[in-house]
């Protein structure tokens, strides 16, 4: 049964230094509030896992939470580079960052294997690709029926999965809808999970394209309305494209980035204060 608790307590209890932590949400429903709380609590030596690192991992990498990153596309969607990610990879600032990178399909299937209780699963591979030389999580496998050479992808089983959903009920059952990405697989593959939600409702009314995570498959649920900003929660908020664009300038400069993080993330008490600090108009 999921414990319904505060985000602070959930992160204190479930995210430890040295953990591998998957924060998922494919553009939609990115768990920014939980990411900020991890940064605020000063977690270190994390292996961060996410198909599209996005601004959320740029922030965590930039403040030095992570030793390693497992990912497939590290850009600011529609804008350009993730400067903190680049600075870590290109210049080891603030820390050297080990990276293990894959294509989206491989990352998705690594979660699928983890969620399926398997050590690996199978895909069609790409022989002429340099990615395969940079990882020990891909290996050739021969089809015992046809003799074809395919690619085995190793299961991903993060210590913790962190996702954001629109709703939970009072028992801790969780529902998310819209673009649902790989959140179900990430939560089922992980040993522990934290779900932030827009609101708690009496009943989860069935909805189109919804993913339901039963309460017994989730460790903790915390209510954080708007907790995806600058990402969005379908039915609750819209993507703050202006924020994504302005992040380019904020993150390009180390000093400006540090100051921004201090003012809006590290030096605030929690998510409400973050939102208020932004209303004072300091992003760009």
């Amino acid at each position: 049964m999921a414990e319904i608790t505060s985000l602070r307590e959930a992160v204190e209890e479930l995210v430890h230094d040295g953990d591998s932590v998957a924060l998922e949400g494919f553009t939609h429903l990115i768990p920014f509030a939980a990411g900020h709380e991890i940064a605020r609590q000063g977690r270190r030596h994390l292996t961060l896992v996410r198909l599209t690192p996005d601004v959320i991992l740029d922030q965590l990498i930039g403040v030095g939470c992570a030793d390693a990153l497992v990912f497939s596309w590290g850009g600011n969607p529609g804008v350009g580079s993730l400067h903190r990610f680049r600075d870590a990879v290109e210049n080891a600032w603030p820390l050297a960052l080990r990276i293990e990178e894959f294509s989206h399909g491989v990352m998705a299937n690594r979660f699928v294997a983890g969620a399926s209780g398997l050590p690996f699963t199978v895909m069609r591979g790409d022989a002429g690709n340099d990615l395969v030389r940079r990882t020990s999580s891909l290996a050739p496998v021969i089809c015992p029926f046809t003799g074809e050479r395919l690619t085995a992808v190793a299961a991903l089983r993060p210590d913790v999965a962190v996702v954001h959903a629109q709703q939970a009920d009072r028992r801790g059952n969780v529902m998310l809808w819209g673009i649902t990405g790989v959140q179900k697989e990430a939560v089922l593959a992980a040993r522990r999970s934290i779900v932030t939600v827009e609101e708690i409702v009496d009943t989860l009314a069935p909805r189109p394209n919804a993913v339901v995570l039963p309460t017994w498959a989730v460790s903790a649920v915390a209510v954080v309305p708007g907790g995806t900003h600058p990402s969005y929660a379908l039915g609750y908020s819209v993507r703050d494209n202006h924020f994504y664009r302005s992040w380019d300038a904020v993150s390009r400069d180390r000093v400006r980035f540090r100051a921004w993080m201090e003012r809006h993330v590290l030096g605030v008490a929690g998510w409400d204060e973050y939102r208020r600090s932004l209303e004072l108009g300091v992003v760009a």
Partner: protein
Amino acid sequence: MERLWTPEEMMTVAAARHLPDRCICFVGIGRPGVAANLARATHAPGIVLVYESGAIGAKPWRLPLSIGDGELAETADLVVSVPEMFNYWLQGGWIDIGFLGAAQIDRRGRINTTVIGDYTRPSVRLPGSGGAPEIARSSRRVLVVASHSPRVFVDRLDFITSGAEGVSAVITDLGVLDRDRASGELVLTALHPGVSVDEVRAATGWPLRVADEVRVSAPPAPGELEALRTLVARREVAA
């Protein structure tokens, strides 16, 4: 004669023209989204746009900034999970055209979107592969849209992000390269209006082969330009 359109606009229009009506098109991140939506707004109203975020048959009114914008899901015929997208719809063989961008491309039509420089000490760390390797591998045809310069059209890729079968055609701001089946090499087959073969050669990092007959692209029609500018303006307004 003064041109009423930019090379970037010509590139997008030429790319859009490569997409037949009713084809199933997997839309990569970046430039392909503009061209694919232009095709839908002009000659290909029945094109099926597939986005890696899970939207199949998306019909956005404005250009999405990211490939996971809410409008894609809300206007789609169906929305699926990312594993289902890559396993059933892409690897399952339903995609007619995979439509990609590229930071570097070589004469064999292989793509780099990973690093410039050495992998372990890159001079520029690029975003990485995303879905491109799977899109390139599993689509019946693969198109790339990219600005023509020696930085992009290189003799040797710094990293092969997506190799194997390579792309079928590359649409640039100077012309069109088609991959020759026999040699597997990209060959110049069309020039945009006002562009010379020498210009294209100068913008290509390897000794570019030129087809026996080189077409000249029709300039953007007024309807194409208007549709493109409306799409771009909508994105700016909405942002």
